[in-house]
């Protein structure tokens, strides 16, 4: 198994955990010092130079995961179901990222929430994704994840499930 295959399987695992609603297990993939970033401006490099859709440290990732595992009746919001289709997985230049590998991938994510708006209950998101992975035994952990949504400067309605 090449490292690229191993990386592909790991990204497929992350997608599977999200798509089967195992958000706590998904949060465990992240290192303590991780950064999960969904920027607005694709050219932005400093996460604090401007507002972003998501700028989570490990604590916020855990809070998100916990919130999604809270029984439904306690939150006004129906559980979202997602399908993450990951493709075009390639190694990228590591640059100054504190990780063993930097990996680019293309994401098409289809999300459904039962909100009684007919076809509009299903939304399609697409993004260029960049993972900073650290080797951990035979697998990896995520030290950095950046999701550049194709429509990052558009207004977004409520989104609960992470990409």
């Amino acid at each position, binding site marked *: 198994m090449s490292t690229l295959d191993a990386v592909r399987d790991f990204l497929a695992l992350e997608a599977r955990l999200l798509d089967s609603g195992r958000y706590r297990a998904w949060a465990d993939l992240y290192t303590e010092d991780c950064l999960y970033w*969904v920027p*607005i*401006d694709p050219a*932005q490099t400093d996460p*604090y130079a*401007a*507002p*972003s*859709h*998501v*700028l*989570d*440290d490990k*604590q*916020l990732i*855990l*809070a*998100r*995961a*916990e*919130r999604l595992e*809270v029984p439904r009746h*306690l*939150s*006004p*919001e129906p559980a979202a179901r997602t399908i993450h289709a990951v493709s075009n997985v390639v190694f990228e230049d590591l640059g100054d990222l504190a990780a063993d590998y930097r990996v680019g991938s293309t994401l098409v994510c289809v999300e459904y929430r039962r*909100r*009684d*708006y*007919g*076809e*509009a209950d299903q939304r399609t998101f697409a993004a260029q994704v960049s993972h900073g992975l650290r080797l951990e035994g035979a697998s990896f952990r995520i030290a950095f994840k950046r999701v550049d949504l194709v429509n990052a*400067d*558009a*207004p*977004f*309605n*409520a*989104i*609960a499930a992470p990409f």
Partner: protein
Amino acid sequence: MNAPFPSAAVPENAAVHDLEEDLGALVREDHVHRRVYTDPAIFRLEMTRLFGRAWIYVGHESQASAPGAWFTAEVGTQSVIIVRDEEGRLHGLYNRCTHRGPRLCSQPSGQGPRLSCPYHGWSFSHAGELLSTPLPAGYAESLRRGQYDLARVAQLQSYRGFLFVNLSRDAPDLLTYLGHMRTTIDDLVDRAPEGVVEASPVVLKHSYRANWKLTFENLNDTIHAGFAHHASILASGKVREAYGEENLSPSLRMMLANGKNLRFFQESEMVTEPFGHSYIGGHIGAKYSAPSMSSYVAQLEALHGPEKAEAVLRVDRHLMLLYPSSTWHGRYQTVRIVRPVAVDRTEVWGYVFKLKGAPPEVFRNAVEYCNGSTSGFSPVIADDLELYERIQQGNAFGEADWIPMARGLHERFRDDPAETRHPATSEAFIRNQMQAWKSFMTDPA
């Protein structure tokens, strides 16, 4: 009600009886008729009688700082251009070419020697005068001086760099309209060590499928936080257990702050003002780490002197709602524009401001607040947007026409016409908005 897409619903009974004499009857002292949120004919009238007559916040001077720089903004559903001419003067122009009517500027901002229409190349000066038309002879007499100049907004005024537009001549002047609420703008600007404030060019936006007034009726509501955001309070509580109170990141603290018990808010103040404005006392304390705090305090004392610097840092105000266009947080340098798109569709655009020269942590803290309070991905915002849409669905149909806004009807801390003070748990801010709505909407002038 599952209008698959937020298409304009059919006017409820526009045909049945005249909307005009209805309007007054739709707002009572402590109830409002559901049609104010669901009737597209009323939405259309709001665009001319409310957004067409009130002072609407459109942006900050730093968004068009260089000569020839411009940015677009919305005054209700009317798109306008704010442009700075070569002499540095700002102009407010209707974003519509006077030839066949296309939007002139479709980018959020730009810069150039003149504004030109991509269709037939008509070009206009920064003041909106028609400069050149291809083959002017072809127009002969019909190009009379000024007839095809870009329409100008009736009034464009700035308060400490923050720009406001009024589409009508006969409106109260800006300072009267702002009234006491100008002190929140002061609260923001006075925190700038060099008195200079810059808007971040990156704008964070969320949208929802419900009426624009629901945002205004939520952001000074202190009762909902503990219930609507219960899931994120529970979740962040678990993280607090794991990491310990003192190691929590700012965004976690904000989520936990929603869990404060109601007594805290009963003792906080809500101020309501003429024209529908309001604010509530602060409840999210923002402390900077020691090193940043001390250097920052020193900077403010250098600028204001110790007394005024201390007064500036003592202001602890939560969100100020400037009806009907924007929400303001001085301490976190965040301003949000509420953009009505359709009767059942609204966008909210979040701008964070950098206080030039302040320690990096000040801006970083403002960015974190802006993210947590404006992103559609933020658990707190996600809860509120769901609830707005359930309100739009619940009020779209049915026999229950009257929606109560009675909480704290007779609770007052202070009662004088310019500025009434209530417990922060009151719905006085909603009643205040609806009275302003009614006076604008029923004035046919």
